[in-house]
């Protein structure tokens, strides 16, 4: 059973695990427990045979009115899910008090809980060092070196580079076929209002230029709460809008195979369908914890707002696979931060700059960080070479925090530092 009581993007972090568990011969069924608000997202998870919903707003209202009311409702919901049985294994994918307390209630033995949970003395426990890492380092972009989905997969003993792609609904696929017609499949654009503040151009200009120069029509998809913006862009550019439910949108993304967005939720959904995408981001360091998946080109203005031409050039190269633009790409890289997200040699998600032909020292340092932590999770001593590399090139913020670690990584770093000081 997989307990995922978060947002839609949190739910999709479970995709690799449900896919891997669902494919195991010794697993009878994989059941997912989510909120009623995330039911559609849970229903897309590959390998999941049953989706249960907990009523979020109903429980909140009851808890405000009467503690007994909330307790009776929650107990009823749990009994409805259990139906007189218990689960052999429970994966809790939420770092919240509700899920931490609920997880042990779905199984007879608390040792069968994978992920963080609250034990009978009220203390938080973690079933795997990866979850302790997550609790300690969190999602701070200045500290965390892993994508969240990689940490969850490692903790659930699932390969970090498992695809875990959303299975397209055959009915939705037929609908998409009719919706797209016989012409070329469109490029999907999912804009956000917040991005208008940091983009150096309007979405209307991007949509019309892309439709004009790309050779493929542009179709708009509205991220949550962005319906008005999408209507406005559609009115001004004539681009079609796909107003479809989530599972149909997922099938549409899969069929179109190219997404340009500034919305993180859409980026995660597109990553779970395995298509190529361009993700426009505000300035700042790439938040590694939130990496949506592979086959993504992220663009942000390093010193100034993104320029329309630069976005069009990169979109044509990456999404539409138009050749002969490599020379332009290198020259257009000035003042831009353009990274491609993919798997590194260790099978973990990482971002590497596309315009840099030589090995990037920052990327290799991040790889070394990931290697020492992954080794620690499986009980291997940290590689001396990696530790030396980190002490030489590592960011002082991360090094300072990691030296305080009580596990093998902290010990190795402290020992190596002392050795270096003695030698000096």
């Amino acid at each position, binding site marked *: 059973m997989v307990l995922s009581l978060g947002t839609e993007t949190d739910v999709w972090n479970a995709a690799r695990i449900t896919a891997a568990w669902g494919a195991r011969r010794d697993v009878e069924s994989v059941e997912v427990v989510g909120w009623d608000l995330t039911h559609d997202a849970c229903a897309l998870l590959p390998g999941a045979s049953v989706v249960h919903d907990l009523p979020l707003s109903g*429980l909140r209202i009851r*808890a405000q009115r009467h*503690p*007994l*009311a909330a*307790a009776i409702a929650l107990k009823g919901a749990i009994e409805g899910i259990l139906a007189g049985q218990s689960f052999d294994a429970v994966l809790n994918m939420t770092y919240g008090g509700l899920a931490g307390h609920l997880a042990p209630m779905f199984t007879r033995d608390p040792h069968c809980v994978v992920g963080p949970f609250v034990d009978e003395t*009220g203390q938080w426990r973690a079933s795997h060092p990866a979850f302790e890492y997550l609790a300690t380092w969190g999602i701070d972009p200045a500290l965390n070196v892993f994508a969240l989905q990689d940490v969850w997969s490692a903790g659930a003993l699932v390969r970090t580079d498992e695809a875990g792609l959303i299975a397209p609904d055959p009915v939705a696929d037929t609908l998409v076929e009719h919706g797209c017609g016989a012409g070329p499949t469109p490029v999907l654009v999912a804009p956000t209002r917040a991005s208008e503040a940091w983009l150096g151009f309007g979405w209307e200009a991007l949509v019309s230029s892309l439709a004009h120069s790309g050779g493929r029509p542009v179709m708009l998809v509205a991220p949550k709460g962005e319906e008005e913006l999408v209507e406005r862009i559609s009115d001004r550019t004539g681009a079609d809008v796909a107003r479809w439910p989530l599972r149909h949108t997922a099938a549409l993304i899969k069929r179109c195979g190219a997404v340009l967005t500034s919305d993180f939720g859409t980026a995660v959904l597109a990553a779970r369908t395995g298509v190529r995408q361009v993700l426009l981001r505000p300035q700042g360091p790439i938040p590694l914890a939130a990496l949506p998946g592979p086959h993504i080109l992220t663009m942000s203005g390093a010193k100034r707002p993104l320029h329309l031409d630069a976005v069009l050039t990169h979109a044509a190269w990456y999404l539409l696979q138009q050749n002969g633009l490599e020379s332009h790409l290198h020259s257009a890289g000035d003042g831009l931060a353009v990274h491609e997200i993919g798997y590194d040699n260790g099978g973990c998600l990482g971002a590497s700059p596309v315009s840099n032909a030589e090995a990037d020292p920052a990327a290799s340092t991040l790889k070394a960080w990931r290697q020492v932590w992954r080794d620690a999770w499986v009980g291997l001593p940290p590689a001396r070479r990696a530790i030396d590399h980190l002490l030489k090139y590592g960011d002082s913020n991360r090094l300072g925090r990691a030296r305080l670690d009580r596990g093998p990584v902290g010990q190795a770093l402290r020992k190596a530092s002392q050795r270096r000081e003695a030698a000096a």
Partner: protein
Amino acid sequence: MIPVWVQRLPAIWIAFVPGLDPRMPPGATVLSIADAKTMVQNGQISFDVANAWAHGAAVEFADDAPPEVRAVAGRLRLLLPEASRPHLAEIGTRFGVPRIATAMAVHATPPSVAALAQELAEPHPDGVPRLSPEARLLRALTGL
């Protein structure tokens, strides 16, 4: 949640003429104004009303209800937490949370979920209290 609906018509009319008031939510626990007045005067409420309240139901009435209905419904809202306490143990037992209900019945006004969860922690010989299933249920609710 199905509300407790205070109706100005006598209960017997409502029972025999279904659909008399289309604004009344289906399945509501219906109280005639006379019943509501009796409950307010005696300070004793029926099990059905206590049960509905313990399930989170609110006391409601029609938008165009006369001042008399509004007044008695308002007083019933204030009275319910205390007047339903004798029924709480019975309701809690029926729905499998007897310890929460018993702990609640001690309080004059409904305590917070967090305070109640503290009270339900079980003592242990090693001095560290353990979470009973009901206490765990309440603690989980604090994380909503």
